[in-house]
């Protein structure tokens, strides 16, 4: 089957993208500048990401919709303020994760941003779970553009007035070329930034403006090094249908209230995992030296017992060291526990690390 193309495909090519097949789309893994430069441009300036392959689902409904969505998702939605975004999960009864997603309360109902590889199956599942009186649209007409980095707000503000007033994990409707577009302050790089939902036919010109204002394109390669340094999970790698949010160390995304009162799919399992603990848990792992431990690398304790597996690993261009995440037996999940990683038949020392690996040092009161 041919890969789908996003509205930015020719722009990607213009900037020297190496295009790869990703979740059924032809997507840029990197541009002519390369992954490290793209990574640094996001940390120091502003990077633009084409995330149009991700699903933009719109569910329309009256006041009853929030309660009905709460029967599915573990997020608190009935008290969500207009334009507030929440990170949540679509799970099965065993609390295995079908997808991780961002839900935003809008005037007509809720917007949900889904992972590209999961969006069609999510849609089918949600259509079954949700009363058919609620209209569900998985948009094909909208592109999704992220701009991330310390200069993201300044650059976007030049093109769209008022965006810098948005608060983190909040969205709003803005006027751009006499059309209403929806923007949220969010992202997945550990930097301040925005995600802009814009009609396909205007996407290329919009991104060109961002480039002209000083932002630069960033591919999937640097998106991966950025999110890994920020300690953020990649669906299908660091979490999947065999892992629960508790095991994935994402319990924080389920409010106390929902854990107390339940009423969502997977609640019984989550409750029991919180009470009894889990056998394996996601941790950060920092190899000593420069050795890179990639996905599926086995993890051993000091007695040479296999205690887990790496789920993501690379070299972190900002921390200037290799970084990884993986699942280990709970007993060995304490910060600074010494472990060994088997790479190409040899075992290399590493330690369990705090996440994120990269922390933004915000400077207050400096404006130029």
């Amino acid at each position, binding site marked *: 089957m041919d890969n789908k193309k996003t509205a930015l495909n020719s722009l990607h090519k213009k900037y020297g993208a190496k295009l790869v097949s990703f979740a059924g789309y032809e997507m840029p893994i990197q541009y002519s500048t390369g992954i*490290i430069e793209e*990574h640094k441009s996001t940390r120091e300036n502003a990077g633009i990401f084409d995330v149009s392959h991700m699903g933009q689902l719109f569910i329309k409904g009256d006041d009853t919709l929030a309660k009905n969505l709460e029967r599915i998702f573990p997020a608190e939605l009935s008290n969500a303020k207009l334009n507030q975004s929440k990170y949540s999960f679509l799970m099965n009864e065993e609390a295995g994760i079908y997808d991780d997603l961002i839900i935003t309360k809008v005037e007509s109902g809720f917007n949900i941003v889904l992972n590209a590889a999961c969006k069609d199956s999510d849609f089918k599942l949600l259509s079954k779970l949700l009363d058919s009186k609620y209209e569900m649209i998985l948009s094909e007409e909208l592109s999704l553009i992220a701009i991330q980095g310390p200069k993201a707000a300044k650059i976007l503000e030049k093109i769209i007035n008022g965006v810098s007033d948005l608060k983190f994990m909040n969205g709003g409707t803005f006027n751009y070329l006499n059309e209403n577009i929806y923007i949220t302050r969010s992202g997945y790089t550990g930097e301040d930034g925005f995600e802009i939902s814009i009609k396909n036919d205007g996407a290329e010109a919009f991104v060109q403006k961002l480039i002209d204002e000083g932002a630069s394109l960033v591919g999937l*390669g*640097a998106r991966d090094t950025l999110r890994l340094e920020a300690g953020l999970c990649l669906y299908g790698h660091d979490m999947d249908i065999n892992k629960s949010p508790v095991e994935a160390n994402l319990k924080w995304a389920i409010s106390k209230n929902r854990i107390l009162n339940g009423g969502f799919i997977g609640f019984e399992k989550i409750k029991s995992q919180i009470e009894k603990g889990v056998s394996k848990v996601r941790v950060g792992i920092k190899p000593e030296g420069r050795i890179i431990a990639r996905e599926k690398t086995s993890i051993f304790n000091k007695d040479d017992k296999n205690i887990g597996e790496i789920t993501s690993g690379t070299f972190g261009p900002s921390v200037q060291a290799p970084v990884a995440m993986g699942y280990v037996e709970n007993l060995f999940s304490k910060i600074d526990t010494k472990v060994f990683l088997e790479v*190409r038949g040899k075992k290399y020392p590493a330690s369990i690390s705090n996440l994120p690996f990269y922390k933004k040092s915000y400077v207050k009161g400096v404006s130029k």
Partner: protein
Amino acid sequence: MSEAKYSKEHEWIKLDGDIATIGITQHATEMLGDIVFVELPELGSNVEKNGNAGVVESTKAASDVYTPISGEVVENNQSIVDDPAKINTDPENEAWFFKLRVKDKTELDSLMNKEEYNKFAKENSN
């Protein structure tokens, strides 16, 4: 030093007496992307033609390095271990990988010259 010869695994080799210097080609670095880790064969070890002789890793993936010729490793370039980015900057000079005392110079005969390699690389770049 002799003119460089090239292997289908994208290594270059230059011969000086019975000492061969080996590295990876510019084309290889362009395919790999930013290199962030390198592992070299140990000093004094013997490597066999087309056998494994180290690893390079980019931010994306790990790739084996093969030796285009057999011999004993007499030197390896620690400066690229400490600063793998050098491999992207100057792969065919400063960022050589290792030097071998060559056993059999006729092993070089099957390798490509620059022109042949460039043609080969072009045809295999997709």
